[in-house]
């Protein structure tokens, strides 16, 4: 008999669809940290991450029959979490705290004559509470559409094609959002990091 860890996602999904709650539990266990971690990275808040974790797996259970197996299960999960975050954003109208990048205050062009060099001091020593707070603050200013792209691509290591699938965007749109998000975050952290 196969041990649980050797059962493929596909098989767990198949069994879950037939009402095998043990298989569904295994599926949840396999992906709960991915969902919680990704949610936390997007909202920087434990309570919201917990709420998103619950909503996501309820949606997974309800929509399991819609998963067609053409994309990876993780891609499907990311898209459910992303939809959750985007919907909540609309409900809470948090947009006011975010900047608009559609008409970017951060120019893609050379905006400073001289770009200051960033510190080389070991960044680990900078991982103090001040830096963490600054990282959170900067990323929360990014509109959700940009934030999710940055996290999927640069933090979660999803390819541009996967990110495009998750967000239902074209690959060039993903690249353009990623470029602006990176520049924006860099600018927000600049004063802290300049030598």
């Amino acid at each position: 008999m196969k041990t649980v860890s050797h059962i493929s996602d596909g098989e767990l999904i198949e069994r879950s669809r037939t009402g095998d709650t043990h298989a569904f539990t295994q599926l949840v266990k396999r992906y709960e940290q991915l969902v919680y971690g990704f949610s936390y990275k997007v909202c920087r808040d434990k309570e919201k991450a917990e709420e998103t974790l619950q909503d996501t797996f309820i949606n997974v259970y309800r929509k399991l029959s819609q998963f067609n197996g053409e994309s990876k299960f993780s891609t499907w999960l990311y898209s459910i979490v992303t939809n959750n975050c985007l919907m909540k954003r609309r409900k809470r109208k948090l947009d006011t705290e975010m900047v608009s990048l559609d008409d970017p205050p951060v120019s893609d062009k050379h905006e400073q004559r001289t770009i200051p060099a960033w510190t080389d001091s070991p960044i680990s020593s900078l991982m103090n509470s001040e830096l963490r707070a600054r990282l959170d603050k900067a990323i929360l200013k990014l509109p959700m559409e940009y934030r999710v792209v940055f996290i999927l691509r640069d933090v979660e290591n999803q390819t541009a094609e996967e990110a495009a699938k998750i967000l239902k965007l074209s690959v060039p749109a993903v690249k353009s959002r990623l470029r602006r998000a990176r520049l924006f975050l860099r600018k927000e952290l600049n004063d802290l990091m300049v030598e």
Partner: protein
Amino acid sequence: MMAKKTRTVHRHHSLHCADVFSHICENLDADLDSPQCREIKRHIAGCPDCTALLDSLKKTVYLYRTVPIPTIPASSRRKLYSVLSLETGRRLK
């Protein structure tokens, strides 16, 4: 689109920083070896601004990849399983 390759001392000036910037911003880690990428690498090597931009963008990404992210608290996991038990009508553990 690609600057003509000329063997002059000021070769890196054949590309403008703005072009290099947008390339850098899109392909931070890509170590591509196309003629255009070699041209860009040469420009960066000779341009303090582009070097500083590339370095700071890499550090930005590094910081977000490195900052510790919490694991699920036990209480959140308990809530998740009780919510899912209600949903599926069976006890999950």
